[in-house]
């Protein structure tokens, strides 16, 4: 009875909040409406849908021993309290993706992206994370790739491997580009981000040699040093003699990130990767909490319209109509295939009670989605003219400030050169025009929020703190990702020649790391030389790859539900799968077939080749045109590959489900039930 009452209250408040959002169309609304609607929708999803799935579909059994209990070795298999597993899991899934995606999708207005973040997470992303966590927990914590092989067959396994490797390459490239664009021609940002490297090494040595394993105190020291780094960056920016050293172009910074990625992948983890990861986790959780508090205190007004004219596909931040590109662009904030790699593997080995998968799987993704909502607020509280001036590449808006403001104002989003210059001065930057990639505009938004709540005098410091905050965990993703790519590469090459598979054999380590770095470094370099900013090519490619990986995970989950439960319940994963298959295939179709050079990869290649042949390109653009043409074609073929992999997996899943529905014998690798000794058996499921 109480539950029902709670549900009715939540539904009513959520409906009022959403109604408020709907009724306030054509006039600015307050961010608190969004926050209220989000919290109510999450609460409803968790309280009812997730609980129903846990009880009826999974039939979670609190008395069943988990792998952490059965295989407890005090190291990776450790029964852990659910709130601690929640913390670990959230720290692992939360990356820069949900910050960048909504910032870009804000070109459609605040409404489309927000709706997808909420609906997509509650019915899709959270369900995916929870389901994969559950099936992996029932299978001794097997990885997604292993489960794809076991449950679908060798074809599914290979598809999962290809999916994981390509998404890794694309994600690292696109995140590298985000960092490069945030540091470009900004001595303050560059010196601050560079300072994080020696700081991390110092902490690494402290943690290994001085006070082994004292993670908390080391993180605190590191955090203090990072703040000092932000302040020192401000001082460096004022010194004419030194600032030149850090005043670097995009290509120079790309070279730096590529070199850094290669060295970081070879260095021992204790020296750089592990300590920086401690710092970035610390920073990430702290900043997310601070941002949530600050947004509630400030409750900014959203100045972006609910829906802009760019839903028709003429958007300057990235090309494509609202369907399907708002879904592709939001990516991680609503549903992220990458999470299935975390939900299988590390996290299930910590679950002490099956009933915890609801909190850990569903709950963590809710929080991740909330981070995406905050990023959406930070982007749409900016003056729309300012938002577009920061996020539109020089190739579209025009490279001179006067040209850019004229173009953007002509779209109906007035902005002046003076306004942009005084904003740049307040943020401690020379210019904020065409700073694509999402990080600078997010940093401006965060700095405005923090500045209003905690003191306006420090606006420039807040801006560079926000840039450093994003850069630190992007760099962590870059070297963690390169390392994982290296392990996969060594695994594959080891099949051909044994010594290559040895993960500690230096020649193999150096060679395979270089191969992985070369793969993402290529896309990063092309993104940097692209006059349209590169993000508008790379981000949709990443979005498609990520949603494709989610579709693979959902296929595995659907096959398992059909085999172990019944076809009747398959919709919980089959429905989001069908939606993802529809949006990724439509997006891929448009990216490959569209005759519009803004949208279609091959059309863009042909268009550029024609311009190059007729000699209408300025000298600077003509020099890079051949590389851009090749890259557009490569991206087109990659998109074709993604689509083929996606449909092969779906076909394989349908085959398995059909066999199972007909009652033909099928394999299930679920570990038989053993009674848990951890707590006295308390009857019933979740």
């Amino acid at each position: 009875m109480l539950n029902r009452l709670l549900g009715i209250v939540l539904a009513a408040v959520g409906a009022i909040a959403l109604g408020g959002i709907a009724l306030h169309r054509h006039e600015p609304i307050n961010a608190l409406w969004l926050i209220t609607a989000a919290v109510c929708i999450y609460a409803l999803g968790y309280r009812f849908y997730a609980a129903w799935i846990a009880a009826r579909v999974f039939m979670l059994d609190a008395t069943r021993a988990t792998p952490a209990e059965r295989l407890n070795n005090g190291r990776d298999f450790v029964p852990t309290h659910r709130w601690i597993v929640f913390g670990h899991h959230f720290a692992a899934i939360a990356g820069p993706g949900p910050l960048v995606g909504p910032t870009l999708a804000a070109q459609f207005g605040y409404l489309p992206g927000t709706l997808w973040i909420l609906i997509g997470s509650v019915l899709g992303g959270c369900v995916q994370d929870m389901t994969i966590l559950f099936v992996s927990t029932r299978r001794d914590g097997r990885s997604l790739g292993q489960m794809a092989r076991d449950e679908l067959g060798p074809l599914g396994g290979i598809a999962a491997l290809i999916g994981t490797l390509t998404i890794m390459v694309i994600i690292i490239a696109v995140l590298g580009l985000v960092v490069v664009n945030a540091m470009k021609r900004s001595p303050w940002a560059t010196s601050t981000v560079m300072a994080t490297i020696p700081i991390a090494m110092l902490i690494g040595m402290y943690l290994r040699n001085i006070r082994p394993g004292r993670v908390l105190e080391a993180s605190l020291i590191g955090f203090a040093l990072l703040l000092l780094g932000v302040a020192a960056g401000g001082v460096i920016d004022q010194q004419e003699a030194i600032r030149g050293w850090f005043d670097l172009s995009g290509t120079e910074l790309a070279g730096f990130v590529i070199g850094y990625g290669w060295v970081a992948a070879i260095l021992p983890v204790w020296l750089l990767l592990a300590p920086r990861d401690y710092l970035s986790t610390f920073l990430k959780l702290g900043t997310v909490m601070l941002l949530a508090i600050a947004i509630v205190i400030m409750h900014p007004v959203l100045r972006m319209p609910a829906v802009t004219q760019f839903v028709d596909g003429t958007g300057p931040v990235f090309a494509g109509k609202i369907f399907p590109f708002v879904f592709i662009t939001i990516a991680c904030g609503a549903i992220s295939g990458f999470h299935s790699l975390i939900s299988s593997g590390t996290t299930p080995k910590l679950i002490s009670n099956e009933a915890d998968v609801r909190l850990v799987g569903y709950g963590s993704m809710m929080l991740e989605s909330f981070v995406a909502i905050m990023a959406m607020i930070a982007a749409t509280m900016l003056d729309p003219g300012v938002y577009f001036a920061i996020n539109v590449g020089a190739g579209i808006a025009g490279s001179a400030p006067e040209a850019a403001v004229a173009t953007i104002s002509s779209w109906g989003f007035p902005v002046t050169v003076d306004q942009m210059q005084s904003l740049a001065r307040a943020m401690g930057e020379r210019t904020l025009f065409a700073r694509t990639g999402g990080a600078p505009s997010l940093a401006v938004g965060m700095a405005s929020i923090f500045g209003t709540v905690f003191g306006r005098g420090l606006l420039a410091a807040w801006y560079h703190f926000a840039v450093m905050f994003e850069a630190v965990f992007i760099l962590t993703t870059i070297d963690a990702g390169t390392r994982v790519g290296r392990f996969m590469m060594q695994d594959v090459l080891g099949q051909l020649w044994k010594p290559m598979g040895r993960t500690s054999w230096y020649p193999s380590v150096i060679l395979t790391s270089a191969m992985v770095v070369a793969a993402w470094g290529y896309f990063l370099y092309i993104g940097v030389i692209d006059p349209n900013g590169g993000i508008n090519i790379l981000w949709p490619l990443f979005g498609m790859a990520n949603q494709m990986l989610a579709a693979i995970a959902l296929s595995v989950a659907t096959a398992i539900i059909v085999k172990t439960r019944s076809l009747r319940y398959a919709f919980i994963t089959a429905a989001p799968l069908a939606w993802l298959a529809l949006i990724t295939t439509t997006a891929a179709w448009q990216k490959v077939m569209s005759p519009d050079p803004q949208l279609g990869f091959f059309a863009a290649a042909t268009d550029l080749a024609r311009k190059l042949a007729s000699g209408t390109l300025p000298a600077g653009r003509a020099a890079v045109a051949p590389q851009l043409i090749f890259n557009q074609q490569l991206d087109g073929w990659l998109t074709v590959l993604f689509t083929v992999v996606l449909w092969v997996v779906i076909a394989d899943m349908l085959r398995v489900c059909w066999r199972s529905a007909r009652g033909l014998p099928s394999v299930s690798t679920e570990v038989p039930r053993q009674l848990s000794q951890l707590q006295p058996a308390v009857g019933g499921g979740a």
Partner: protein
Amino acid sequence: MSPLRSLWRWLRAATGDDAYERYRTHQAQVHAHATPLSRREFYAERLRRKWSGINRCC
């Protein structure tokens, strides 16, 4: 337990600050006869395990 104390314990556990103490407790219960790893060895071993798989996301 006071809320501050339990927050502190959660923080230590969530960051892995208390991993070595947990390991020693586990060793004492399960492998009482074996010599446990030192703090330093344990930390090195923990990092090696942690970073040989996918544990960070986009």
